[in-house]
């Protein structure tokens, strides 16, 4: 056996004469070896220098001087005469395994489907016709699909698989399936024989395909996830007209998955719905009727087929809803305990959920479907967060809070895909202006304040003419005039040394001797 772990197809070269560079075989020289894996290629071994004793006769170990290996390739080489062939296997089913086919005909009408199966070897045609069968899950169990016009052809153009060791398809069966109704169909090939009669597929191979309308939750579980017109009301009783051809069992919930009905066997037509009990606060109640249908299909092996239905909603209500309501729980509202903070998320007309959310960055939050329970504690049954940061909500227990960092203000949630997005709110230009203003205004106002203060109080004034206050100035002007007009009189009086007029004292003093007032004003700022 030979292994290689290079990451691309590599052509190895060896030297059979060099002990450190040869690729030894456990067989003697000149033997032809063949690969047990596809492409079943042959190599002739050359002689190496290493001895090998076969029945006490000295021989040399076989050796290869070159070998091409695919990326991460492996080969199992045996002497050619020991080579055994391989079982035939099916390499492709032309619709594709679990293919979803859109039913083009009116409901309740059968259609024809072309299928093809490719085998690795030529098969026994008569045997194939017997071992290939079809079984169906439809709403018409009495109608049985059958094969018609079975044709065989050899595949002309081989396409090699990229997987190491897988044989390509060489022989193709084509057939037309007649009378195929909507539902799940399984094509089974039981131990088909190869043409040579020597090998069989040695397996029961089941290929599934599903046919239905767009509102069939078994065939198109993603698009048929929500539908209108499924639910009817007649005299206080509810009926659901089933759309899930291909289902075996179904159950329903009238309280958003809080409890479920027992599983019942599926049949087409109307099903009566018994309302399940529900209790909660006024804030937890919802408008209209909402029913969740779940289906299980045995050939599909899956119960991941959910269909939401609404009835009795006002006409202005959104196109779809899959939650009764949603609440944002986050540190900003103490995970719901702070009831004063608005945390209800609005369902928009287009079926998306929106909340304008503002909190200190970075922050985290999760969506809680039921919010605060009647006991005053947050509900823990349907809590959605995002653990793996892929922008898709993960349902998780509240004990494993994952940090979902939000740095914008608006959250949009699509309840069909669980995809949430942050929508930036506001204008970037406005934010730049605000940022620039916040940067510039404090500095500028600081300068203005300092300048005002300095201009108002910090000036050192040299008083050259006594007081410069307007009244004192007027006084000095007045006395100056008085002094001039009465100059002779005052001079005389002064000479006499008698100060007859007290009023003139200042004028006299000023003219005689200038007095300087030095003052410092201090403010306790």
């Amino acid at each position: 056996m030979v292994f290689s772990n290079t990451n691309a197809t590599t052509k190895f070269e060896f030297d059979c004469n060099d002990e450190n560079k040869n690729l030894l075989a456990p067989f003697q020289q000149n033997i032809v070896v063949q690969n047990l894996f596809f492409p079943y290629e042959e190599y002739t071994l050359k002689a190496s220098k290493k001895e090998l004793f076969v029945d006490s006769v000295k021989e040399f170990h076989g050796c290869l001087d070159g070998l091409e290996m695919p990326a991460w390739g492996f080969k199992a080489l045996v002497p050619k005469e020991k080579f055994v062939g391989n079982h035939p296997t099916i390499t492709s089913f032309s619709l594709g395994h679990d293919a979803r086919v859109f039913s083009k005909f009116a409901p309740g009408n059968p259609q024809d489907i072309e299928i093809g199966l490719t085998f690795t070897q030529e098969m026994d045609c008569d045997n194939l016709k017997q071992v290939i069968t079809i079984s169906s899950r439809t709403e018409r169990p009495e109608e049985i699909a059958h094969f018609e016009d079975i044709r065989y052809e050899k595949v002309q153009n081989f396409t090699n698989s990229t997987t190491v060791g897988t044989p390509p398809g060489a022989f193709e069966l084509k057939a037309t399936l007649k009378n195929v109704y909507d539902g799940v169909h399984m094509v089974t090939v039981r131990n088909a024989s190869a043409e040579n009669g020597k090998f069989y597929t040695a397996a029961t191979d089941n290929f599934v395909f599903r046919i239905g309308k767009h509102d069939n939750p078994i065939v198109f579980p993603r698009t048929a996830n929500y539908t209108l017109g499924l639910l009817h009301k007649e005299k206080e009783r509810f009926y659901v007209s089933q759309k899930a051809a291909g289902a075996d069992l179904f159950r329903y919930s009238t309280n958003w998955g809080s409890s479920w009905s027992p599983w019942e066997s599926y049949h087409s037509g109307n099903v009566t719905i018994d309302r399940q009990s529900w209790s909660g606060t006024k804030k937890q109640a919802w408008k209209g009727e909402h029913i969740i249908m779940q289906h299980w299909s045995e050939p599909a092996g899956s119960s991941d087929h959910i269909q939401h239905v609404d009835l009795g909603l006002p006409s202005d209500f959104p196109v779809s809803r899959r939650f009764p309501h949603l609440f944002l729980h986050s540190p900003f509202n103490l995970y719901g305990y702070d009831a004063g903070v608005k945390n209800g998320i609005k369902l928009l007309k287009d079926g998306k959920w929106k909340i304008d959310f503002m909190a200190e960055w970075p922050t985290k939050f999760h969506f809680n479907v039921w919010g605060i329970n009647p006991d005053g504690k947050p509900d823990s049954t349907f809590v959605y967060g995002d653990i793996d940061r892929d922008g898709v909500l993960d349902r998780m227990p509240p004990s494993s809070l994952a940090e979902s960092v939000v740095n914008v203000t608006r959250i949009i949630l699509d309840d069909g895909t669980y995809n949430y997005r942050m929508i930036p709110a506001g204008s970037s230009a406005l934010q730049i202006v605000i940022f620039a203003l916040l940067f510039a205004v404090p500095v500028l106002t600081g300068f203005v304040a300092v300048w005002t203060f300095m201009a108002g109080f910090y000036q050192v004034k040299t008083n050259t003419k006594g007081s410069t206050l307007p009244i004192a100035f007027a006084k000095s002007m007045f006395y100056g005039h008085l002094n001039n007009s009465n100059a002779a009189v005052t001079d005389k009086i002064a000479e006499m040394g008698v100060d007859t007029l007290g009023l003139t004292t200042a004028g006299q003093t000023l003219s005689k001797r200038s007095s300087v007032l030095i003052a410092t004003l201090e403010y306790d700022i």
Partner: protein
Amino acid sequence: MYVLDNTADNYIFGSQAMSSALAWQTHGCYKLGSSQYFNFPLDKALRGCEDDWNSLDHRDPSNAIRNVLKAIYHMRLAFPTLNDGFHLEQLSNLTHEVFLPCCNSTPTETGIWPVARGNFDGVQNLGELGGDGNQSV
């Protein structure tokens, strides 16, 4: 199947339902990257949510890996030494060590090497059935 499930970038794993299920496609676009492996080839795992195949049934009998395993089971049936042979011998070793930027001074061994599987003489006799001979597959 290639969708990754892990929630931390230093512990990568994936597990996926064999039967049809929507969840692995819904959560199929991996965003965390790898903090451990150099040049971890995530390519497909980053876009798993765009591939509708992820929500289909995976028990496909025409799958290439199934066909290889089927061939290997057939070889074990045809060659008792592949089923029960205790003897495993490395014949030569044509590998060399490369140092990848991930791993400081830990080398990664790459190349080609042949081994021989066979009867462990003295302990086994695969020519016989049962006992210390050939066991059923």
